[in-house]
């Protein structure tokens, strides 16, 4: 079983839609949960970073962590064409190694 599972998409939504991105993980030792956004040919950019179960909101983005189900989500409200990118979930337990999902490709259509 892979450490991290993420649906690669692609996901295509109209502008203004709510987007839901999800990842599951198998390692219960993971303590830190992250979402990265990666534009084509660019480095991943940290979007959201959470430590515990629950919700964390930052502008149009909400990260949700459910440790009991080993499931994390990223919600994007009022999606914009500039949100079109690949979204990677990432996990670590001690900060020594990070485990990434394969990324979900999102296109927001104007």
């Amino acid at each position, binding site marked *: 079983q892979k450490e991290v599972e993420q649906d690669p998409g692609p996901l295509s939504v109209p502008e203004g839609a709510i987007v839901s991105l999800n990842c599951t993980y198998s390692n219960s030792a993971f*303590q*830190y*949960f*992250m979402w*990265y956004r990666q534009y084509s*040919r*660019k*480095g*991943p*950019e*940290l979007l959201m*970073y959470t*430590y515990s179960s629950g919700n964390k909101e930052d502008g149009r983005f909400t990260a949700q962590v459910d440790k009991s189900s080993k499931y994390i989500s990223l919600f994007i409200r009022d999606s914009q064409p500039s949100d079109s990118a690949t979204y*990677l979930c*990432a*996990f*670590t337990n*001690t*900060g*020594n*190694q*990070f485990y*990434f*999902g*394969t*990324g979900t490709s999102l296109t927001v259509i104007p």
Partner: protein
Amino acid sequence: AAGVIQSPRHLIKEKRETATLKCYPIPRHDTVYWYQQGPGQDPQFLISFYEKMQSDKGSIPDRFSAQQFSDYHSELNMSSLELGDSALYFCASSLSERRTGVRTGELFFGEGSRLTVL
């Protein structure tokens, strides 16, 4: 704000040649990571350094080596290049919590170095 700087941005090499990639972490960050990302793939961890000492090793081939220097910049050396080494190579840096020394999950990536092996 200063970001992670990588050079060169693009590199073309032939099989069996060598290549060196450089990374300058964010000032005061104490940990540097190297990742390899193939087309359409997630970043694969290669190696990391904490305070200039090798910290962790991932799927780094024996043909590759890396080190971190006294000024905290890091170099990834790749020898006997193969076609399969063509990828984006990312460097990332992070800062440990001062009180506990625990490294958190906040990785900051550079723009990447694109290596093409012909």
